[in-house]
């Protein structure tokens, strides 16, 4: 399979997996779902890291990637922490 078709396949299949998993999340947890999935979308950080850390690239590309690292890191760290904080509140009294 050609490279593009390969990753397109991955994309389409991942959407189906996503739909299967997410429909099982109860409405009670929809806010943590949003903040948690938002943290996951911070995965762009790995693209930003590669571009920000490149040795021989133009300063413009590097600075843009540097700002992207900051934004994505806010997303990742803030997203997972706030989700953890929220989820810990969902308890059942014994």
């Amino acid at each position, binding site marked *: 399979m050609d490279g593009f078709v390969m990753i397109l396949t*991955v*994309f389409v299949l991942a959407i189906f997996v996503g739909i299967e998993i997410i429909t099982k999340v109860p*409405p009670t947890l929809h806010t943590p779902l949003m903040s948690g999935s938002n943290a996951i*979308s911070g995965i762009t950080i790995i693209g930003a890291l590669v571009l920000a850390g490149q040795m021989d*690239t133009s300063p413009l*590309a590097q600075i*843009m990637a540097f700002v992207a690292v900051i934004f994505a890191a806010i997303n990742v760290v803030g997203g997972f922490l706030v989700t953890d904080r929220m989820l*810990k509140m969902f308890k059942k009294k014994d």
Partner: protein
Amino acid sequence: MLNPDTVNIAYLIAAVLFMFGLKGLAHPRTAVRGNRMAALGMIFAIAATLLSGKFEWHYVVLGVAIGSVLGAVAAMKVKMTAMPEMVGLFNGFGGAASVLVAGSALVAAMQYVTSEGPDTQMKVATVATGIIGSVTFFGSYVAFGKLAEFLAVKWKLHLWQKVAKYGFSLIVAAGAVWFGVASFETAGVPESVGLILSGVLIGGLLLNKKDRFPGMNALKVVLSGVALILGVLVVLNPDNTMLFWVMVGAAGVVGVLLTFSIGGADMPVVIALLNSYSGLAAAATGFVINNNVLIISGSLVGASGIILTNIMCKAMNRSLANVLFGVMGPTSETPSADDVYGGKIKATSAEEIAMLFDGARHVVIVPGYGMAVAQAQHAVRDLANLLEQRGLTVDYAIHPVAGRMPGHMNVLLAEANVEYDRLREMDEINPSMSQMDVAIVIGANDVVNPVARTDPNSPIAGMPIIDVDKARTVVVIKRSLSPGFAGIPNPLFALDNTVMFFNDGKKAMLDIISAVKES
């Protein structure tokens, strides 16, 4: 240094951990562990990336450090009532990060034009990332500004609101002008002018004090078209990176316009939609840099946002197009407040409400956005505890669009230590509503308006509601008879079995609590 296969295996493990993490969210018991698994996956992916090659470390370390500190402080400080603003803002950061990665990748790729330059996949994906990411970023900023009540309002602003509002507009407009003027010679006049125009347009639109203006929908369509045409031009001339930024600017105007007119009860739809876009932007970035884990994670988030958007739209019986382009409000056929309420409103006191609980067995509490505004969730829980001590059963009925984001009420009540199995979904509790002795509506309006069932001409016709009117007695806690987001009167307030307690949500709860203790 890890070889590429090892790195890709690590990415695969990360993707699997993300899926298990989201799967954990299927139940509150497993959710904390699930979220931590997803976080572990992220650490895995980042570590593998940093071990995959040689890096200039100062940018990497500094960027991660700054972002982590900002993110951690925000996550620890934010109040639960402000969660919609926070999620709105974070969606925007995700979108912005994607745009910047795509832009940076484009610039970097053009440096090595010695070979054949970027291939079609990369060019198209860069355009898609630029458009989706920019709509997400500017749309999220608007959503944040409207939730934090500093955009499209007429009243006086606090200092931080002024800084956020005028500062952002100024940075966008001035940045575009500076960048445009600076590249007048290198990039060509039309591109520079285009960038300046779009930046100034964004900055100016954001200062509007009204959330609608004539020709707004036409402008949305025109600028969407402009952004798409610019996208095609970028694919044809990838070496013209300025064109990419003009396209990002045009898409930014679209993002502002799409969200600017949306407010109140439509907010959950938009927050969910932007959540989906931030995921799709990440997936598109994956196509830019040929990376599977970005594509998988991005699609998971995209799917999640789309599902939530759908649920929210269904819960209002409206289409997405209607939320984005339509106008919600009373029509000429809507009966006037005087006709509906005239002489039929019964105001009550805390003491009389306390008496309602004598001989009652089952109480249901229906919270709305007003509970969040009044920060009344702890007082609500205290009243419920008190009633439970006296042998009553207390349940909570949660409408899917109550509040300003999906699941907003649930988080607030969880914060107040309400057990999650007491939080009942609308469809679950409606059939037993006629067995409820007392229904307490606090800060909710349209989601309990019976005209949704009875009047096919009403703007909320067909919207599923919580059938509190079927309870034996309904207590409505509200500051006044002012209408909700739909702008229509609510006949529930005038029913024989309804009493109104005009008060601030929190104060009302505290008054009722002391009245119950005294009785």
